[in-house]
């Protein structure tokens, strides 16, 4: 199967981006200035990512909210139209995190459910199952991913620089979701992101995406690729599906219990997760910091007193801290400040258990 291409594909290639396959899409890994420069620009100025590979599944009509409540772990009753919420879809049998999702609840009452690229089909069918089980016939569930591009503008100067393109888009508050016309084009802007920095994400009709991208880049915002997106989210302690979330991993193990609202009634996977809640998760996600630059890597073993107690799920060099950092699952968890040993690729070294996020 050929990888899908973003509406911005030609713009990336014209900018000499290095393109890589990701979740069934071909997306920019980095631009010529490189991942470290892009990372630095996001922490200290502003960057723009093309995140069109995220899915958009539009849920609308009578019962849309009820169906999302049945499907997902978080509670939409805690927010309102015009707000965004991070939530999980669980496996009904073992409460594994099938996907982690941002929901943009739009002012008109429709819900734009945004799964990870490779999970869009699974999320769409789970929503369909929940609609059928609830007997909601009036609901419409549509994968509208191909109709739009999504740009994430992130960094301490993101709003200031974006204001020269669209003051209204730049003013959208954290976790707000607002319909904004940018240069006459109807867009949806949300105060969300995945870098640990302030910023907004903009959904723009596919045919208008290049013009908006160019305006944003011309405003002095640096294009950044998946390489920087990964080092940024890792420093921010944010999970990546397929690493810290996925088959066999529950929200409780991943330290994301706050995403599960037990007081809201039934949701997919609740029964299975209640069992783990009773006994407590057998392993927990922890942050590890190395004393040297060498990046820990996924699959490195975690040892305590010479015995294997866990495994690294993501690791890299932290450009901000100047040392290796990792997320790892450790049996029984591990106390902040304690020492563990990483073993991989023929070497062992001591690492410290640290609080997340690594960089605030």
């Amino acid at each position, binding site marked *: 199967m050929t990888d899908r291409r973003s509406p911005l594909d030609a713009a990336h290639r014209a900018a000499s981006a*290095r393109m890589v396959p990701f979740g069934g899409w071909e997306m920019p*890994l*980095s631009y010529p200035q*490189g*991942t*470290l420069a892009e990372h630095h620009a996001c922490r200290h100025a502003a960057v723009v990512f093309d995140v069109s590979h995220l899915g958009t599944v539009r849920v609308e009509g009578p019962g849309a909210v009820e169906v999302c409540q049945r499907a997902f772990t978080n509670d939409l009753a805690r927010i309102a139209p015009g707000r965004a919420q991070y939530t999980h879809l669980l496996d009904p049998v073992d409460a594994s995190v099938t996907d982690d999702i941002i929901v943009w609840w739009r002012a008109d009452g429709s819900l734009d459910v945004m799964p990870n690229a490779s999970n869009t089909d699974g999320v769409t069918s789970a929503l369909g199952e929940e609609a059928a089980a609830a007997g909601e016939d009036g609901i419409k569930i549509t994968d509208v991913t191909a109709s739009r591009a999504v740009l994430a503008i992130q960094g301490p100067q993101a709003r200031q620089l974006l204001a020269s393109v669209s003051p209204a888009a730049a003013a959208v508050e954290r976790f707000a979701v607002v319909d904004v016309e940018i240069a006459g084009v109807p867009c949806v802007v949300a105060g969300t992101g995945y870098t640990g920095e302030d910023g907004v994400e903009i959904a723009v009709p596919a045919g208008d995406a290049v013009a908006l991208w160019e305006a944003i880049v011309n405003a002095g915002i640096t294009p950044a690729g998946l*390489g920087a997106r*990964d*080092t940024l989210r890792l420093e921010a302690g944010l999970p990546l599906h397929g690493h810290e979330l996925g088959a066999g991993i529950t929200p409780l193990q991943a330290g994301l219990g706050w995403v599960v609202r037990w007081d809201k009634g039934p949701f997919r996977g609740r029964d299975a997760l209640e069992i783990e809640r009773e006994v407590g998760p057998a392993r927990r996600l922890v942050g590890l910091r190395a004393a*040297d*630059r*060498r*990046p820990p*890597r996924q699959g490195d073993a975690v040892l305590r007193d010479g015995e294997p107690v866990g495994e690294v799920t993501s690791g*890299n*060099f932290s*450009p901000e801290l100047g040392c*290796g950092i990792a997320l790892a699952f450790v049996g029984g968890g591990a106390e902040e400040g304690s020492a563990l040993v990483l073993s991989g*690729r023929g070497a062992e070294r001591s690492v410290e258990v640290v609080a997340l996020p690594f960089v605030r």
Partner: protein
Amino acid sequence: MDVPEDLRYSSDHEWVRRSGSRLTIGITDYAQDALGDVVYLEVPSGGAVVAAGERISEVESTKSVSDIFAPVDGTVVEVNDQLGDQPELVNQDPYGGGWICVIDIGGDESGWDALLDAAAYRALIAE
């Protein structure tokens, strides 16, 4: 990609600069570009006796891990300690400040003779 005429090359994308029996080793412009930003380089052990094809070092970028192999038989007589703190020199100046180590081949010419010249290496990376 820059492929200087006066160097020889291995098929593992290392360059070799000869001065008498001393061969300075690094990774090519092509290799550093393919790796992306280098964030860690394991400096080889000085004094080690190495065989061609033996792993002598490891270079890691934000996206991948790669081994560096001895391109010839010999003894590691000098290492670039600066790369421990500044591995980015491999990206910024692959044929200069990014040199990795010096291997002395003594009187054994076989390893040198087996290396690629610039034209052959250019053909390799054009494939």
